[in-house]
């Protein structure tokens, strides 16, 4: 099939010629040079995925030192055509629009606004090709960690050319880890060798390697293997791999459970104050979380380009916003309702409706995008099987920090002492000179502010929209009650254990059934301990 040529540029005819030619001419690997690179760059600028593919192949094979940056830029969608003159640049988002670098001369070429640039688009097939190409080029990168990533990337996509390259490089490689990776890649390719002895040798080399590509490779081998000895070795290896995977799988489940638990604790801990300590059934708690998430969005909008910093600033901002709204609710409505706890449910339910609609009217009924800073994405690769996602680890850590801070406030500060005094015996506390009205307002503000902080954390995990609060309110009440009303430790333990139980049940019961079972478990547990995990003791507890 001839290449489809788009008459988009003046040099269309020339490009077509090149594109046509490269289908016939097999690109030689060894003797390539700057000419290939330039030819490839021309092709990359066409509007045709097939031609771009050819171009990438040319550039990758050119052996030119500029090739790596060029391909990496294309992979990250950082290659642009300047609209006025059709020139190709690598663009990086800077303070004043995009900073441009000419990929051929590798010199800075000023800046340009986004609308003056046309990005070079790529599709999945190209992405896959680019990944192999960049990984191959990175095999000779001076930084050992880059080489290691590259070799792991390549593990299951080794072809004849890169195999030869790997064999060459493996001999010279100084870093043990990288060498190991290269040996594994070569062994994987050797699994397809003709002689059974070499296949067994390859299998031996792969022993203990947990990389999914290894498992996949062995499975592929077994599906068509005739030789009995090779089969036996392969099966033994697979079993060992499976055992280890199960073991790490359990650790992973535990981690998942703890991170789900952290989310539950974060969502519930503000409620543990307003509901647990003050006895206010705060149905607007979810909306206070939502306000925190929206605050994150607004702070990010106010300071574009500083996603990470904005996130940090959003924490105090959300605390203040939600806390202020909380105090407003307390002063405006709830303080008239003390002694009538069930009616706070009614009033705060009304407030929650108003807050939801307020966000719909003022901001948008749609979800808003909250960006994740780079350090929140990705995962911490412990080994090829077990990797812990960064954002979840931050959430667990953040949850513990918030909990500790709140615990200290309640235990070590004057305010905490007064809060506890008022919640245990209001009249007595007043008699001792505690200004109970002020304490009420501050406590409610504290609980609401913490809800706002939880909103910042949730904005990194889920949708930020008007319904955000609704999806957490039921779970929050469940956690507080399960833990025992009025007990911060209870909330922590309850949230974490519900998270873990849920995640342990999930693989064999499915997500929905797991949740149902957890709810049934809570109902039955409350029968056994009618006041939660950590019941409040003493006279005040008797209602």
């Amino acid at each position: 099939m001839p290449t489809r040529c788009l008459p988009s540029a003046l040099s269309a005819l020339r490009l077509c010629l090149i594109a046509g030619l490269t289908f016939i001419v097999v690109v030689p690997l060894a003797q390539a040079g700057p000419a290939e690179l330039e030819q490839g760059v021309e092709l990359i600028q066409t509007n045709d995925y097939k031609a771009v593919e050819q171009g990438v192949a040319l550039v990758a094979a050119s052996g030119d030192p500029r090739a790596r940056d060029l391909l990496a830029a294309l992979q990250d969608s950082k290659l642009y055509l300047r609209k006025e003159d059709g020139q190709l640049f690598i663009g990086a988002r800077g303070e004043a629009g995009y900073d441009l670098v000419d990929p051929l001369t590798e010199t800075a070429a000023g800046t340009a606004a986004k609308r003056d640039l046309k990005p070079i688009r790529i599709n999945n097939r190209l992405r896959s090709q680019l990944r192999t190409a960049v990984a191959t080029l990175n095999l000779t990168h001076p930084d050992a960690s880059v080489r290691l990533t590259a070799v792991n990337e390549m593990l299951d996509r080794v072809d004849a050319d890169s195999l030869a390259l790997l064999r060459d490089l493996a001999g010279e490689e100084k870093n043990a880890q990288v060498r190991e990776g290269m040996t594994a890649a070569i062994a994987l390719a050797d699994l397809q060798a003709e002689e059974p002895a070499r296949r067994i040798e390859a299998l031996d080399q792969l022993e203990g390697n947990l990389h999914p590509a290894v498992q996949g490779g062995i499975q592929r081998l077994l599906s068509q293997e005739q030789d009995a000895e090779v089969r036996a070795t392969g099966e033994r290896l697979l079993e060992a791999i499976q055992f280890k995977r199960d073991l790490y799988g359990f650790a992973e489940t535990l981690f998942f459970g703890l991170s789900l638990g952290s989310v539950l604790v974060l969502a519930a801990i503000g409620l543990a104050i307003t509901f647990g300590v003050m006895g206010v059934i705060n149905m607007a708690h979810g909306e206070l979380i939502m306000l925190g998430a929206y605050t994150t969005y607004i702070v990010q909008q106010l300071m574009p380009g500083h996603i990470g910093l904005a996130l940090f600033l959003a924490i105090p901002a959300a605390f203040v916003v939600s806390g202020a709204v909380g105090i407003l609710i307390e002063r405006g409505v709830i303080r008239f309702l003390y002694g009538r706890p069930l009616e706070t449910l009614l009033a705060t339910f009304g407030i929650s409706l108003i807050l939801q609609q307020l966000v719909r009217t003022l901001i948008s009924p749609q979800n808003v995008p909250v960006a994740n800073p780079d350090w929140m994405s990705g995962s911490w690769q412990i080994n090829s099987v077990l990797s812990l996602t960064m954002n979840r680890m931050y959430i667990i850590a953040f949850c513990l920090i918030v909990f500790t801070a709140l615990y200290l406030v309640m235990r070590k500060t004057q305010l905490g002492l007064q809060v506890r005094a008022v919640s245990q015996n209001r009249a007595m506390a007043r008699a001792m000179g505690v200004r109970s009205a002020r304490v009420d307002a501050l406590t409610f503000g504290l609980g609401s502010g913490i809800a706002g902080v939880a909103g910042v954390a949730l904005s990194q995990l889920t949708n930020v929209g008007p319904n955000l609060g609704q999806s957490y309110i039921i779970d929050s009440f469940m956690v507080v009650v399960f833990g025992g009303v009025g007990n911060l430790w209870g909330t922590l333990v309850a949230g974490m254990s519900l998270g873990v139980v849920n995640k342990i049940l999930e693989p064999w019961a499915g997500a929905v059934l797991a949740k149902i079972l957890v709810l049934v478990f809570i109902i039955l547990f409350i029968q056994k301990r009618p006041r939660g995990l950590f019941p409040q003791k003493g006279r005040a507890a008797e209602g």
Partner: protein
Amino acid sequence: MRLGTLHLDRGGQIFLALLTLTTILVPILNLAVPADSPMHVSTFTVTLLGKYLTYALLAIAVDLVWGYLGILSLGHGAFFALGGYAMGMYLMRQIGDRGVYGNPELPDFMVFLNWQELPWFWHGFDMFWFAALMVMLVPGVLAFVFGWLTFRSRVTGVYLSIITQALTYALMLAFFRNEMGFGGNNGLTDFKDLLGFDLQSDVTRIGLFIASALAVAGGYLACRTIVTSKLGRVTVAIRDAESRTRFIGYRVERFKLWVFTFSAVLAGIAGALYVPQVGIINPGEFSPINSIEIVVWVAIGGRATLYGAVLGALLVNYGKTYLTGVMPDAWLFALGGLFVLVTLFLPYGIAGLLRRKETTA
């Protein structure tokens, strides 16, 4: 007996009188008055009123346990929905071979999920008496078992409220599952007729409206009977001082259990009347927010008066119907604001307002 029940219950007397008047007038204005007359009541309004009345019955059920027994149930929507499902299953079986796939036995959604035969729990629902029994039995038994466990363990206060919420939440998730055999998220729809009457005809709608009105009146009188009896005085004592009542020697959990179960049965009946009038029952009815809303109706109307619950249910739902049409973008402000204002300025709800008038007059 009846006079005794309503003795000293001015609100109840007015309410029942108004209800009787409406029940007589509305069918006449709908059927006998020509459609272009200003006095004509459209079928739309009749269905709407019928729906409100089922909500009113539900509110009475909640008021009985909340107002007189002190149990804030945040899960009464579950009993309502279960009654609704029982009725829905009967209506589904009545479709027979008139479904889109023309299967004489299986409802459409089962054909569609490749089910070969009717699940065991669907048997019997082709008979009205069985379905009618289940409407009361299923919510009743659930409430009995739940209450027996809970009251015996002396779970009270917010703990009780939250686990009733957990109950309805768990049921919602369960009914959402298509494997359960209740139609999943879509629930049960496309009903054709009830006891041979076409559900789309005006006469059937009028009939359902009258049935709902009778149910509300019956439910009201029954609850009123309970609360004015000796049993009622014990329940109020439990509400106000549970431990003391227990120390005096009453088996508190038994009183609670029976009243709670009765209330659940009432809610189930309300659900069964609701479904043929709105034409759909789906797991959304189990959602915890719905149950909270019911409590809100009772609080708006006035707790522990029974007729206040009816008033609240009618008013809030009418407000919803009216405002979602008139100010679709801002009705939540109005409704939310109403909730806040009523709590602040009418601590005893709207019924409290009437009662205040009564005493000052």
